[in-house]
């Protein structure tokens, strides 16, 4: 393999431009669209976490709604029980919640393949959905929980409530940092092994890699970042609901991955943006039936454009 001659410049320029645009949105866009962009970023983070499993390791999981949901409810637990509300503890609670689920899923990932893994993760999401939906005393049942947004705090130094713009920049920072971390990990030898597992698992095993261990780490990583997305969503919207744990959310995440381009990390973010914009736009005309054209577009893309919107950039984005 030849060493590519500094592809970095083009890539980092693009990166800088996108980052600048994202940071500028509070100054430019009206409030509705501002929040929209922030939400796209959060869903983008969720989609990125799913890409680790689907795009890089080749494990289709319909369980991300469980990670996301438990991140949300973990955050809710922190925000409802801890006085004064602490942003960082909220994040930790959320990550712990998601992490516990991830441990279970990780165990199954080592024993099941393909469709069996997919269905089992789907069932996992539903187990949590049913528990959360019916355990009304603790989880608020159907109606979910509401709470207040914690202030942005650096422990011991300052504590200032989020402004709309401030919160947006916080999200941009978190999502960007997550992206950079994940990118670094995927480009490392570890990430390369994951991709090898996707390409040809038996061969990777035969070469001598403990495929099980890699899968476990991949699931934990994926679950934690998905949980983080859940925490951010809870903090942004100040409520949680069982709907987010329903397996259809996992389905939407998979749609983001496929539409945007699997195995690229940014692709799924673009996929989330594409889907959410389509939904916003189409629901103007089609109201609640927007899923008919969106579903058709998605199905057509699966058949004709399986590499997704950014799939053609896959190699360059992964260098």
């Amino acid at each position, binding site marked *: 393999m030849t060493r590519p001659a500094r592809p970095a410049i083009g890539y980092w320029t693009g990166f800088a431009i996108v980052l600048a645009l994202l940071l500028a949105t509070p100054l430019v866009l009206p409030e509705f669209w501002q929040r929209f962009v922030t939400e796209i970023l959060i869903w983008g983070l969720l989609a990125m976490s799913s890409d680790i499993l689907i795009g890089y390791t080749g494990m289709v999981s319909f369980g991300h709604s469980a990670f996301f949901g438990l991140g949300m409810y973990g955050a809710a637990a922190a925000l409802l029980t801890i006085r004064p509300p602490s942003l960082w503890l909220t994040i930790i609670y959320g990550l712990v919640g998601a992490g516990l689920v991830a441990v279970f899923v990780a165990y199954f990932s080592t024993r099941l393949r393909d469709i069996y893994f997919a269905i089992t993760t789907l069932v996992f999401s539903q187990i949590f959905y049913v528990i959360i939906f*019916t355990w009304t005393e603790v989880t608020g049942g159907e109606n979910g929980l509401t709470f207040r947004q914690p202030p942005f705090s650096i422990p011991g130094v300052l504590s200032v409530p989020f402004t709309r713009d401030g919160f947006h920049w916080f999200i941009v920072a978190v999502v960007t940092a997550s992206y950079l971390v994940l990118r670094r990990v995927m480009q490392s030898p570890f990430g390369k092994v994951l991709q090898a597992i996707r390409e040809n698992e038996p061969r990777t095993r035969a070469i001598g890699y403990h495929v099980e261990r890699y899968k476990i780490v991949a699931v934990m990583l994926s679950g934690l970042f998905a949980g983080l997305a859940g925490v951010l969503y809870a903090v942004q919207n100040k409520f949680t609901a069982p709907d987010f744990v329903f397996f259809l959310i996992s*389905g939407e995440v998979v749609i983001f991955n496929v539409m945007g381009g699997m195995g690229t990390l940014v692709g799924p973010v673009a996929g989330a943006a594409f889907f959410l914009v389509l939904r916003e736009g189409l629901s103007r005309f089609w109201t609640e039936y927007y899923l008919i054209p969106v579903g058709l577009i998605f199905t057509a893309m699966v*058949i004709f454009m399986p590499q997704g919107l950014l799939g053609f950039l896959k190699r360059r984005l992964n260098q």
Partner: protein
Amino acid sequence: MGIPFDQILIQTVNGLVNGMILALVASGLTLIFGIMDVVNFAHGELVMLGGFVGATTLAMTGSFWIALAAAALTLALIGAVLQATVLRPLLGRDPLTTILATFGISLVLQKYALWQWGPSARKLQEPITGQFDLFYLEYPWYRVLTAVLAAAIIGALYLFLRFGKYGIWIRATTQDRVMAQAMGIPVPVVLAVVFGIGAGMAAASGVLFGPLGGVTQTMGSDFTLRAFIVVVVGGMGNLGGSILAAIFLSLIEAYASLVVSPAQAVIASFVVLILVQLFRPTGLFVPTPK
């Protein structure tokens, strides 16, 4: 235990009845999977559409039987067309793709139903009313009829597959698609027909279920999920296994709902799935794990 015997009895019969409906749905799903490796995420939506078509036909004609036939035939046709157009290009691609494609289709079908029939539930009028004496209890005739009809349809499928030229074609294609083609069997047609049969059976389930639970556009995901669990527990591609698994799981859920609410009883099926995946991943009713 403290649970009255008559409740256990009723739940046993309920479990059997629900099990037969579920078996009808799952047989179609496992048949489709066995022959073309397609995990049909939209299968529940086919049940739902069958229910709606049945409801509309029943309203127009007043006959449950015509409604049943109309729903089955309509969805069989839709299914065959769906396979021939959307799924055929995906043959041979990795299984993730068909899961996604059928998932996309399920979204479209679900919202289409919302568009055509609105958000409220349709109830179907059962063809025979009245109850009979089950030991010292009263049990609705219609429920028994449902189980009998479902069993009859599955039985008809079994006979069709076992005897007759087309049954041989279907079984040969399921075992070795390439060699079936080499023998001149028109495999593309067989695949479309089998998908149609699966869809027709799903639609019939929807109509049979109509009087019991009503038809809403969200019932699809529930059926899809349960059917998946049945097919995995029964052994994918294993027709007999799916039927046994459907009855087994429905009975467990029926008994569970004596103790917890029905919404929570569904967790019992989930737990069974997870246990089966841990200990007998190829299926509970498969003779020997490979």
